[in-house]
């Protein structure tokens, strides 16, 4: 075995690194490194920079504007991106809808929507979950009834991430109430400006407003916005979910935040010595560091097994579980490292451009909100319990 990257892959990594050095605005990387909240314009700015280089939709085929990378190249890019503290690509259009349209959309739909995803004309959000359909996604109740050239949509979606910014939403809707629950679902593209749509923000545990409820009352959607065939939406939905779980391990994010934790633990004093020298804290850090190194190799092993591109199947569930556990443990250790100074709640300190005086060490105000916010990692995208069910069934055959 040889765990090092090939010379070509190393050269690619250098190319990526120099791109981040030259093109990633320091203002953006500083915001990301400090854990501040990005504005819509910040995210759009970074998308435009990536798109200009042809690297925004890095898993799309070249025909539709992708760079033609291997899975290892994509892994390298994602890692370097996190290590450079680049903003995360907002996944809904680029990583989720894009692959679905490419595989199942009509030629007209591809021509209409894919370029607009790349150039930022449309901000997409995801209309999957409903109040009664979370883990049981196929239990969704939002209906679409065909009347001539339009579907009339009624119902409610929830946990719609960044939906407050969205121009478009891709939705799972029930088009055949009589069919078995997975069989009567369709996949619709809906303009958020349509009459009858109302977006209500949900405030999360840390005070953040990043998710929303979206209500549909007699919303008319052109039949041309149906993706694939009517009542076949579940197939497309599942295909999309495998993409949602790609890179959900977030090894790069973990490495970047762990490095910051290590630096801080050296500086922070506890009982007359550095926190990094406190035997119990050092043991906690060592455990997570070992786990992370193991995770990186597991991630690469899974990718190496996916011959010729595409998304891994049930293996992505392993990456999701372990990767999110590690990310959560790092945010937990970071919170602990600040001791009493994790307690002050200064919401304005989380916003870009805040110039107030810190309470306690620099960035202390981010530690606890970040820990609480990241509890979501083991819940969204299919909770870790659901992932374990998938592993039990698909890998273990139980």
């Amino acid at each position, binding site marked *: 075995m040889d765990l090092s990257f090939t010379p070509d892959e190393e050269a690619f990594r250098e190319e990526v690194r120099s791109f981040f050095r030259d093109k990633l605005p320091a203002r953006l990387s500083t915001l990301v490194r400090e854990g501040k909240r990005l504005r819509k314009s910040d995210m759009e700015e970074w998308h435009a920079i990536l798109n200009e280089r042809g690297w925004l939709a890095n898993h799309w085929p070249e025909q539709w504007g992708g760079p033609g990378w291997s899975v290892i190249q994509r892994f390298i890019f994602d890692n370097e991106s996190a290590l450079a503290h680049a903003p995360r690509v907002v996944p809904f259009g680029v990583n989720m809808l894009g692959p679905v349209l490419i595989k199942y959309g009509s030629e007209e739909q591809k021509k209409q929507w894919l370029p607009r995803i790349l150039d930022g004309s449309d901000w997409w959000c995801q209309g999957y979950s409903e109040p009664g359909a979370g883990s049981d996604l196929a239990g969704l109740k939002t209906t679409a009834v065909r009347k001539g050239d339009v579907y009339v949509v009624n119902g409610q979606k929830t*946990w719609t991430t960044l939906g407050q910014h969205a121009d478009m939403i891709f939705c799972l809707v029930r088009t055949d109430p009589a069919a078995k629950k997975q069989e009567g679902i369709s996949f619709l593209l809906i303009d958020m400006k349509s009459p009858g749509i109302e977006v209500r923000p*949900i405030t999360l545990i840390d005070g953040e407003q990043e998710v929303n409820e979206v209500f549909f009352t007699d919303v008319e959607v052109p039949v041309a916005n149906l993706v694939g065939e009517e009542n076949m939406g579940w197939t497309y939905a599942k295909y999309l979910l495998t993409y949602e779980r790609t890179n959900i391990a977030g090894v790069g994010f973990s490495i970047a935040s762990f490095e910051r934790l290590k630096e801080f633990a050296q500086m922070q004093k506890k009982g007359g010595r550095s926190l990094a020298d406190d*035997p119990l*804290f050092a043991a906690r850090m060592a455990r997570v560091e070992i786990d992370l190194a193991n995770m990186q190799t597991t991630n690469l092993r899974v990718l190496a097994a996916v011959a010729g591109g595409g998304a891994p199947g049930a293996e992505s569930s392993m990456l999701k579980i372990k990767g999110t556990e590690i990310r959560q443990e790092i945010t937990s250790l970071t919170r602990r490292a600040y001791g009493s100074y994790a*307690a002050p*709640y200064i919401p304005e300190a989380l916003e870009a451009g805040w110039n107030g005086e810190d309470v*306690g060490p620099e960035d202390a105000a981010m530690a606890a909100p970040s820990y609480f916010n990241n509890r979501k990692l083991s819940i969204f995208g299919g909770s870790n319990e659901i992932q374990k069910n998938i592993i039990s069934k698909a890998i273990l055959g139980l």
Partner: protein
Amino acid sequence: MNFEHTDDRRMLADTLVRALRDGYPIETRNAGAYGETGYDPAVWQQLTELGIVSALFDEAAGGFGGSGFDIMVVFEALGRALVVEPFLGALMAGRALAKAGGHDETLAGIVSGETIAAFAHEDGATPVTATKSGDGWTLSGTKAVVSQAGAASVFVVTVEQDGDPLVLLVPADTAGVSVRSFNVVEGGAAGDVTFENMTLGADARVGGEGQGQAIVDAAVGAGLLALSAEAVGAMEFVKETTLGYLRDRKQFGVPIGKFQALQHRMATVLLEIEQAHSAVINAASAFDGDDATARARALAAAKYTIGRTGALVAEETIQLHGGIGMTWEYAVSHYAKRLVMIDHQLGDEDYHLQRYIALG
């Protein structure tokens, strides 16, 4: 063996739990907790009139309780309702004064609830030092993240000294004292308290020569017991709410509590809460005993246990709720925050584990 509380104490607990359940819904709590002062003075007055503070002190100090088990039942009830009003400061500052004797008027004000007090113990970036000047001292430095510092009219301040810590009573309006107040993550308020060349007379001293460590131990010990009991009260609320959710919430056509994966997680939560409850009973029992080492070990064991269990219960109950547990609107999220952040007060689980080892 008898694990029943006495009748008096049970009545006290029942009265408190009922009053808080009826008069302190989460909306009221959050309005105070995330408001400017971090608590509601009107609620504080109502609760002190119920005798909650008096129950934390013995008759010699003007109260009607004061044992470890009194502290336990009171703070369990406060934790169950997620109370943010300044009881911890009253307990810790008051116990310091009661242990030392003297300063009777201030103590009476604390026990009656008229005086808001804070116990300023942990040093900030610039530790607090006291230099002798005349009969008194000159105080400089900062105390970190003092609970309800902004509301307090008196501080009991500890100063590390070679040998025996110095304990001082400092009115908040003394020239040279400043407080930087802030809300805390789980609701409630705290503040950094800075002393700038502040001069204090000899009468500011709490206790006499050689008594400092005993006074600090009394105050901090009571605080550790209170925080541990508060955590167990909060865990009980969270457990009941989560169980209700597991029974009511349906996915795949059945209540989610029917899924073994979730049953086992909830079973773990239950048994760890019972262990935490036992840790608090051990600590409350040792609190009134004569063996100082046994007391210190039981308190360290309790704070270690609730630190570890608090985070576990918080994380598991959020997970068992799914997205709902992540929302500001749902009470459990605020309890979860308190259960996690309580580990950041008076030493975290690592600190108390090491202390337990050091105590032999």
